[in-house]
């Protein structure tokens, strides 16, 4: 097995562990951390495919992923703070209403 396939397998594993984290965590903040882990796994796929193909387009795509991650964490944490302030919903199983 070449090392590129090992890199791709590692990134798939990181992505799936992040997906498992989104499924099982109770706290909203740690669910957001798990989405960051999923984005990291996708970045690793892009960069390793980049080295294998001898191009740089994957790295540029991962810059955009970094931008989206920063935007997502700003908006997502703002939403989490306002959810916590709103009615005292804090577990991910209690948030089932879109409005009061």
């Amino acid at each position: 097995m070449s090392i590129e396939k090992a890199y791709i397998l590692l990134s798939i594993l990181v992505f799936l562990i992040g997906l498992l984290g989104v499924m099982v965590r109770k706290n909203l903040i740690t669910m957001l951390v798990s989405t960051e882990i999923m984005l990291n796994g996708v970045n690793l796929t892009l960069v390793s495919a980049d080295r294998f193909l001898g191009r740089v387009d994957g790295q540029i795509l991962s810059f955009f992923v970094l931008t989206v991650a920063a935007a997502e964490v700003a908006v997502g944490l703002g939403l989490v703070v306002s959810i916590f302030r709103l009615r005292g919903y804090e577990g991910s199983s209690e948030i089932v209403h879109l409005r009061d």
Partner: protein
Amino acid sequence: MEWIVFGTLALWLLGSVIGAILVRNPVHSILFFLSSVLAMAGLFLSLGAELLAGLQIIIYAVAIVVFYVLVITTIPWEKVKRFEGVYAKELAVGFPVVLVAFALMGYMVVEGDFAQPVGKVEDNVREVGRTLFTSYLFPFEIASVILLVAMIGAILLGRKEE
């Protein structure tokens, strides 16, 4: 040599990622995430993407982790303590699903063929800069608009209602 570096960083990355999704305390989870970000920057360095490794440390390990910790300090701690840990039933259902998905995707990766390399990158940072400011100039400008929209959205969401 390449395999030794890859194995060390991969074990570090997997250990910290699994710790980040399974540990009880949210602050410990964020610290595990910080460790996984550092391991990921090492992997990027070993793949020859120096600029992306630096950006990974600057954006993830500094900006995003500090932002998470700041948000945790603004929330009352007893509210955070009430919902820590994982749902046991969802873990029992989700773990086999993830294993099956990994088996399928891993089988495709191991058995399949990759595309042939089309070129060779001599100077990575120079090549990235040239491609980013010629072929990808318009998406680059759009990314700044996305950041501006996210900033305005975060300000509006975090505002106290009168």
